[in-house]
């Protein structure tokens, strides 16, 4: 019959009042990301061999690093001195972690990166080293 749809619609909408809300309370409750989510990197200075591959592969050129000779005269090679990721530029493409031969740089699930100034987006070696929670299990 013509017109019954109005009441059907009104009744359906009224029933929605008691339904469970489908929205997530994001800032109050954290969002759990899937395992392979690409968040900001975690850097382990001890593992780094200063091969420079991450800086070379980076499509946006956001990684700058410098090495210094190994303080232990017995050992050859270099150790990392400074390691900066300019997070204004980083596109989280995951290439630096794929290319790293020693897994010195790995991805984490952290994505809460909003800051008030652009200066805070430059992440240095110390910050990246401390960023050691929610490190991604599977890196390749």
């Amino acid at each position, binding site marked *: 019959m013509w017109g019954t749809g*109005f009441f059907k*619609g*009104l009744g*359906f*909408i*009224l029933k*929605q*009042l008691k*339904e*469970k*809300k*489908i*929205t997530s*309370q994001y800032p109050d409750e954290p969002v759990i990301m899937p395992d392979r989510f690409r968040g900001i990197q975690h850097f382990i200075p001890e593992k780094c061999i200063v091969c420079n591959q991450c800086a070379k592969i980076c499509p946006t050129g956001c990684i700058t690093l410098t090495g210094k000779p190994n303080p232990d005269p017995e050992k050859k090679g270099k150790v990392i001195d400074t390691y900066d990721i300019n997070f204004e530029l980083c596109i989280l493409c995951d290439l630096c972690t794929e290319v790293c031969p020693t897994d010195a740089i790995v991805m984490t699930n952290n994505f809460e990166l909003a800051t008030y100034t652009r200066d805070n987006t430059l992440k240095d070696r110390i910050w990246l080293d401390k960023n050691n929670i929610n490190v991604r299990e599977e890196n390749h």
Partner: protein
Amino acid sequence: MAELLSQPFSWLNLIIMVSAGVVVLGVVLVFVMYAIYFERKVIGWMQLRNGPNRVGPWGLFQTVADVLKLMIKEDIVPAKADRFLFLIAPIIAYTPAFAIIAVIPFSENVFFADVNVGILYYGALSSISITGILLGGWASNNKYAIMGGMRSVAQMVSYEVPLIMSFLGVVLLTGSLNMKDIVAAQQDGMWFIIPQFLGFVIFLIAGNAELNRTPFDLPEAENELVAGYFVEYSGFRFAFFMLSEYVYIFALSSVMTVMFLGGWDAPFGLTFIPGGVWFALKFLLLVFYLFWARATFPRVKTQQLMGFAWKVLIPLALFNVMITALFKTISQAG
């Protein structure tokens, strides 16, 4: 209130009247603020969301913050606009909306003007707001605004006819245009929603269209006309248009409560609850219906809208008037 109106003029009476007006304005403003909050909350729940919940406890201060924002915003007048008309249009739209409240009785003792032609006054003044809307649309010098304004006028003039005609059944039954007499007639007999059910339905639909609300929100039509006739308005003048819209919700729901739901009349003899509470309950039920309809129905098309008014609602309203007159004549003869 009634004895105050019949007293001779004195400065004290003037002060009392003016302060009563200010109190009503305050009540209306608070109603508008919390009607918007209530609307957003209810529609949020209906759409499985939470609605505003950030400002204050349960988001209670959200609309207060919104109003404050509108107050301190810059009042922009477009360069090519008709400046004078642009500036007075919101005032023309709002003044009748507020003036309507004068004739609505809220309970036995709380009313502001005991006008013998209260319903006529309501019908006449609510049409004046259309002028403000059209002027606002035209003076903005904007295509969206003029289209919104034209649609609004076409729609409101069309729906005014069935709206006024749906009054007539009640007026025939009561023999009075006075809102207090109408409530008194319902206190003696039954609420007019039962004998005048058709009239009630017509009033509900035509009233929804008069308010320019979904599903009849073609004048505003957010997704095609941006905001319709007030697209160029900002700050305080925008607030005035919004205010007049929500004051019309207040006025229309009050009039509907008075005419069809028995005003402050207590149902089932529950007279220990004061009449004002009953009025508020019935009134809130109707306001809730408006929000409920907004969450349910999609917007109608222009040709459907006009066809519905002239081909369905007006014949039905005429039929309702005829049937009511017939029954009244038969019952008086018999």
